[in-house]
């Protein structure tokens, strides 16, 4: 398999495996836990490397899982002391683990595969050269096999325990009362996340894993309000970002991992701006509409209150409105235009007159 196939394929598989877990982490308000784990597995990876006396996948996963378990347990224990909050607990534990890992790497193993660049930024560029050989047969890049395995693992995990993950995420109290231990589900999710992080780590490095886990799900959350849609949508977003990132990186000769994460950031930005339901643009448009409607309603109520009163002539004159309501002429025009378009007022020689629907609107607004 050539690099032109192996690299983007690995990218898509890494992004998909990560994105599968992102939805639950976001909904559990544990987004930063994936950052913690992707850093904290480093001493475990190094320990695995030492014990296996070389790069060994199984030893790496085992060491990383143990390091992740230590991290999660330490964070939980720190939180339980109630002397530090959840964010601080994570902030204390993961740099300590990462620091331990960097010390180990630079102290004894400065000449080996695990160099600082690979730790920070991964080495997805070279995945095609690290092939999986079995019985003398070259079965293609190891990374493609590993990442496919991780995708399958995460797919099975979420597929089989979807109900349990959903219930413990939404209502841990009911889950516990019904006999679904939230702690077991929590640790299982953390275990799967740590195994996934090992794979993602080798591709994009410790710093960027969190982006592949969290950003696709955060993007999907802006686009849907159904969990069953959010999960597959986040996988699609992650995979598309990986492909875009790869193409851009090749075109401008830049870091592939960096370009992949930048691409997913851009997709998030687009969703934040243009999501039909929750986007900034849609919200602003909605707010503008609401303000316009309220201005017209205020106008109608004003006319209604002065109707039949001695000053009604003056209060309803179009010139006076701007003055009396302390509105800019532009705003007054907008309110008058809105009210006449809705059939609430009609103009009659420089005055505004309420129509029957206009009076009805005023009564409704005032009754509320």
């Amino acid at each position, binding site marked *: 398999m050539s690099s032109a196939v192996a690299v983007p394929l690995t990218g898509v598989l890494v992004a998909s495996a990560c994105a599968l877990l992102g939805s639950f982490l976001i*909904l559990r308000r544990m987004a930063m836990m994936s950052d913690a784990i992707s850093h904290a597995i480093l001493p475990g990876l190094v320990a695995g490397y030492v014990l296996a006396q070389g790069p060994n996948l199984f030893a790496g996963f085992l060491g990383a899982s143990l390091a992740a378990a230590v991290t999660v347990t330490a964070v939980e224990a720190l939180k339980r002391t*109630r002397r530090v909050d959840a964010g601080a607990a994570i902030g204390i534990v993961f740099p300590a683990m990462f620091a331990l890992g960097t010390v180990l790497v630079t102290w004894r193993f400065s000449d080996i595969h695990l160099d600082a660049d690979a730790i920070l930024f991964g080495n997805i560029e070279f995945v095609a050269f690290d092939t999986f050989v079995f019985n003398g047969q070259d079965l293609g890049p190891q990374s493609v096999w590993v990442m496919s395995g991780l995708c399958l693992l995460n797919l099975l995990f979420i597929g*089989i*325990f*979807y*109900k*349990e993950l*959903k*219930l413990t*995420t*939404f*209502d841990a*109290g*009911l889950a*516990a*009362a*019904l*006999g*679904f231990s939230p702690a077991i589900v929590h640790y299982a999710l953390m275990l799967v996340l740590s195994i996934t992080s090992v794979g993602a780590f080798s591709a994009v490095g410790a710093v960027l894993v969190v982006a592949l886990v969290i950003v696709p799900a955060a993007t999907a*959350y802006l686009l*849907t*309000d*159904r*969990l069953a849609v*959010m999960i597959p949508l986040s996988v699609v977003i992650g995979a598309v970002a990986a492909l875009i990132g790869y193409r851009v990186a090749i075109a401008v000769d830049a870091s592939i991992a960096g370009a992949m994460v930048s691409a997913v950031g851009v997709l998030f930005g687009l969703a934040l701006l243009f999501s039909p339901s929750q986007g900034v643009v849609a919200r602003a448009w909605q707010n503008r509409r609401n303000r316009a409607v309220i201005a017209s309603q205020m106008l109608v109520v004003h006319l209604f209150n002065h109707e039949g009163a001695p000053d009604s002539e003056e209060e309803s004159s179009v010139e006076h409105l701007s003055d009396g309501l302390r509105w800019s002429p532009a705003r007054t025009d907008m309110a008058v235009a809105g009210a006449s378009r809705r059939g609430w007022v009609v103009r009659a020689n420089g005055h505004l007159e309420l129509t029957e629907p206009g009076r009805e609107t005023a009564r409704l607004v005032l009754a509320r």
Partner: protein
Amino acid sequence: MTHAPLFEHAPPGTPVPAVSLRDLTVAYRETPVLWDVDLDIPAGSLTAIIGPNGAGKSTLIKAALGLAPLAAGSVSIFGEPYKEQRDLVGYVPQRGSVDWDFPTNALDVVMMGTYGRLGWIRRPGKAQREVAMRSLEQLGMADFAHRQISQLSGGQQQRVFLARALAQDAELYVMDEPFVGVDATTERAIVDLLRELQARGKTVVCVHHDLESAPDYFDWLVLLNVRIIADGPFAATFTPENLSRTYGGRTHVLGRLDHEAVAREAQEIELRI
């Protein structure tokens, strides 16, 4: 004020209490919040647990459901430990205990009530969906089945929670402040539901805050302030003496045996505490 006769629907003979707590002490971080509670809640009753803020009302029901750490004592539900009776207990947590922005709809939340019987891994199917739909109908929420839960009003969210407990198809329903912050329609729906559950022989235990409405809704009363102050049939237990002992000993203002006056006074006291 009407009080339903007690044990109208309970089986003959000496009934097993729905909830039985023996020498129960609950502690969070080594600090006991409930001291040495002995309590029997009769099967078939509509029971209110009443007490001031911080009295341990929620803790009491959480302990009964195995959700709070027991420092001492034991819990039995219809005569057996809770773990063996899970399927008999429906639970309505406080509405504020969950995130209503969760990406799901009302029907899906109600279906969660059926998860307990399904156990691990088995997925909800058509039968569970029908149970959930019927439960929503019973609370007048069928039209909102596919509504995003964040778009429901507070009262509607509360009715979704009650429908979820109904979907558990339990014998004992434990509710944490179901009447807090709900509209009149929801309040009526909850009261109708409580009456209907009792008519079907079920037991309901509610943490309740409003002393004025309590005599209308419940027939058994537990007064709690870190320990049990008094418990028994509602009318006999809802006395000025008991209330003043529960809410902090201002006996001199509680001279009359008029329920509403007692309720008002006690609530004023609670506000001051």
